[in-house]
C-alpha cells in the first residue's frame, strides 16, 4: 500500500513534467509569435502618434473596377491595370499554379513508376531530388540562365520563353519537396495491387494514373502544392534575373522593403495570412470527401 507521501510525490511528478512541457511550448510559441506581433504592432504605426491600418491600405489600395479592366474591341483585347501588389501577386500565383501543374504532371508518374517498376532506381532518385538543396540558389540561377538564355534555346528572348524558364526553374527548386510528399503518399497505398486490379479491369496507363493513383495521393499532392505555392510566391533570385521589372511578388516585396518604412511590415503580416489561408484550405480539401485508406491488407 502506498504511503500518503509516496502517493503525493507520484502525483507531483507528472505535474512537474507537465509544467516543463508547457514551459518549452510557451518558449517556442513566443519565439515564433513575438516577432510577428512586433511586426504587426510596427505596421500599425505608419502615422505619427496614431495606431491604424494606413500601411495596409497603402499596400492593399483597392483598385477602381472601372479602371482596372480595359476592354478594347479592335483588335479584341482585355487589359488589366492593377496596383502593383495585386498585379505582382496575380503573376506569382499564376507562376505557382503553372509550377504545381508541371511538377505534378512530372513527379507523380515518375515517382509512381520508380516505386512500381524500378525500385532499384530509388536511391538514384533520392540523390537527384536532393540536388536542388545541395546547389546554392544563385549557382542554380546562373547555370540555368547560361544554358537556356543562349543558343540554341534562347528562352529569354521572348516573354513566353522567359515564363517557361521561370516555371522550369521553380519546378527544379520545389522538386525535393514534391518528390518526398508524393513518395510518402505512394508508400501509404498498395500501388502494385491497385495498379494490377485496374489493369485487369481494362484500364490503360493514363486511367491508372489519373483515376486510381492520383485520387489516392490527394493529400500528398495538396501538401506538395502548398509548399510549391509558398516557395513560388516569395521566390526572389530567379524572378529578379528573369523579370527585373518587379512584376513578380518576390521582387515587389524586395522593392517595397528597400523604398518604404511601414509597408514591408504590413506585407509580412499579409504574406503570413495568405500562407495560413492556404494551409487551412489544404487541410479542408484534404479532409473533404472520402477518407484515403490503404486498401485491405498489405
Amino acid at each position: 500500500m502506498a504511503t500518503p507521501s509516496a502517493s503525493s510525490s507520484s502525483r507531483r511528478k507528472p505535474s512537474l513534467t507537465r509544467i516543463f512541457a508547457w514551459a518549452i511550448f510557451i518558449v517556442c510559441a513566443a519565439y515564433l509569435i513575438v516577432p510577428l506581433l512586433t511586426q504587426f504592432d510596427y505596421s500599425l504605426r505608419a502615422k505619427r502618434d496614431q495606431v491604424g491600418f494606413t500601411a495596409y491600405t497603402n499596400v492593399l489600395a483597392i483598385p477602381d473596377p472601372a479602371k482596372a479592366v480595359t476592354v478594347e474591341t479592335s483588335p479584341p483585347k482585355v487589359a488589366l491595370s492593377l496596383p502593383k501588389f495585386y498585379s505582382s501577386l496575380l503573376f506569382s500565383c499564376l507562376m505557382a499554379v503553372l509550377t504545381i501543374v508541371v511538377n505534378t504532371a512530372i513527379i507523380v508518374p515518375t515517382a509512381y513508376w520508380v516505386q512500381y517498376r524500378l525500385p532499384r532506381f530509388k536511391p538514384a532518385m533520392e540523390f537527384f531530388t536532393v540536388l536542388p538543396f545541395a546547389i546554392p540558389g544563385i549557382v542554380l540561377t546562373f547555370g540555368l540562365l547560361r544554358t537556356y538564355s543562349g543558343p540554341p534555346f534562347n528562352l529569354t528572348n521572348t516573354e513566353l520563353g522567359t515564363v517557361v524558364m521561370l516555371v522550369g526553374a521553380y519546378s527544379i527548386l520545389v522538386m525535393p519537396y514534391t518528390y518526398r510528399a508524393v513518395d510518402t503518399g505512394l508508400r501509404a497505398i498498395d500501388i502494385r495491387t491497385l495498379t494490377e486490379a485496374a489493369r485487369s479491369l481494362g484500364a490503360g496507363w493514363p486511367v491508372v494514373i489519373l483515376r486510381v493513383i492520383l485520387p489516392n495521393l490527394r493529400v500528398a499532392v495538396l501538401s506538395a502544392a502548398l509548399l510549391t505555392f509558398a516557395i513560388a510566391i516569395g521566390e526572389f533570385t530567379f524572378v529578379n534575373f528573369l523579370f527585373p521589372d518587379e512584376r513578380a511578388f518576390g521582387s515587389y516585396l524586395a522593392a517595397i522593403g528597400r523604398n518604404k518604412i511601414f509597408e514591408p511590415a504590413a506585407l509580412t503580416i499579409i504574406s503570413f495570412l495568405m500562407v495560413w489561408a492556404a494551409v487551412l484550405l489544404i487541410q479542408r480539401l484534404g479532409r473533404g470527401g472520402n477518407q484515403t485508406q490503404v486498401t485491405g491488407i498489405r
Partner: protein
Amino acid sequence: MAFLELNALRKTFGNTVAVEHFDLSVQRGEFVSFLGPSGCGKTTTLRMIAGFEEPTEGRIVIDGEDVTNTPPNKRKLGMVFQSYALFPNMTVADNIAFGLRMLKTPHDQTQKRVQEMLMLIQMPDYGKRYSYQLSGGQQQRVALARALAIQPRVLLLDEPLSALDAKIRDELRNEIRRIQQALGITTIYVTHDQEEALSLSDRIVVMNKGKVEQIGEPFEIYNRPATEFAAKFVGTLSTLRGTVGGEDHVVVNGQPIRLAQSLHDRRVGDAISISLRPETIALGNGEVGANTLKATVQAITFLGAIVRVQLSANGSSFVADSLNSPSFAPPRVGDEVTVSFSPEAARVVS
C-alpha cells in the same frame, strides 16, 4: 479444344527458375486450383495468365486466342487479389462499375449490372459505402463482384481467403463455389490451403519448386497421390519404415503388414517405407483381415470432432485419427496399443 491452354510455360527471374514446363488444359466452366507451398510458382503462373508476368518460354491460349503477349487490360480476365485491392477513392458501386466503364458500357446498363452484382454477392444496400466501411469478408465479396461484372473469360483468384478469419473463410469459400457454378465461369484458384483446394475444385494442380507434381480430381489427388510430395502435401501422411518380407507383405517392428500392392520387384530384406493416412488407422484390432500393429502412444491432441493420437513403432512416428464421441475413451500417453488398417490403406513410398 480446351478453353484455356498453357503450353510449356517457363518463367525465370535471373538465374532462378520460378516455373518450369507447365502444361495445362482447362475446359470451359471448370474450376481448377493451383496448390502448393510458398515459392512453388503457383502465383507466378497465375500472374502469367493475367498478363502481369511475361513468360520466358511457352504459350497461353484463351478461347483459341494466343494472349501470351497481350497486355493485361486487353485480356478480358477478372482477377481477385489476396489484399482485396478495392479502390479506396471509390464507392462499392463505383468499384464494381469500374471495369464496365473501361468497356464503355452505356450508363443505364452499367447501373443495372452493378445492381445485379450487388444482389449476387448479397450486399444490395452497400453500393454507396466506401471500402474502409466494410469488413474484410465484405471487401472480398465486392472484389469478386467487381471482377465478375465485366463477364470475364476466365476468373483468376490469388489466395482470396488467406487474409480472412476461419469462419468468414468457410462462408466465402461456399459463396465462391456457388457463384462460380451459377455463372459457369472458368476459374483458376491459387491457394496453399489443401482443404480449400479439395473442397472447391473440379481439378487440382499440385505444384512444387516450379514444377507440376500431379494434376487430378480432388479424390484422385488425395487417395492416389502420384508423387511423395503430393502425398505429403495433400492431407496428413505418416511413413513407416520396415523391410520387405515377401511379395505381398512388409515387416515393421517385427510385425508383418500385408499390402494390396505387389512387391515382386523387391528383394526380401530390402528396406522399404509405407505410407498411411491417419483416418485409415483405427485403434484396436479392427475387422478380420486387417493389418494390426503394436505401437506406443506419444501424444494425444483433441481437435473437437477428431482425436489425433501420435504413435511410434520401430522408431517411426505415425498418426491415427479417431472420431470423437461421448463413449470414446482415448488411450493415455505411454500406453502400448494395437492399431489396425486395411492392406489397401498402406501404400509403398520408397
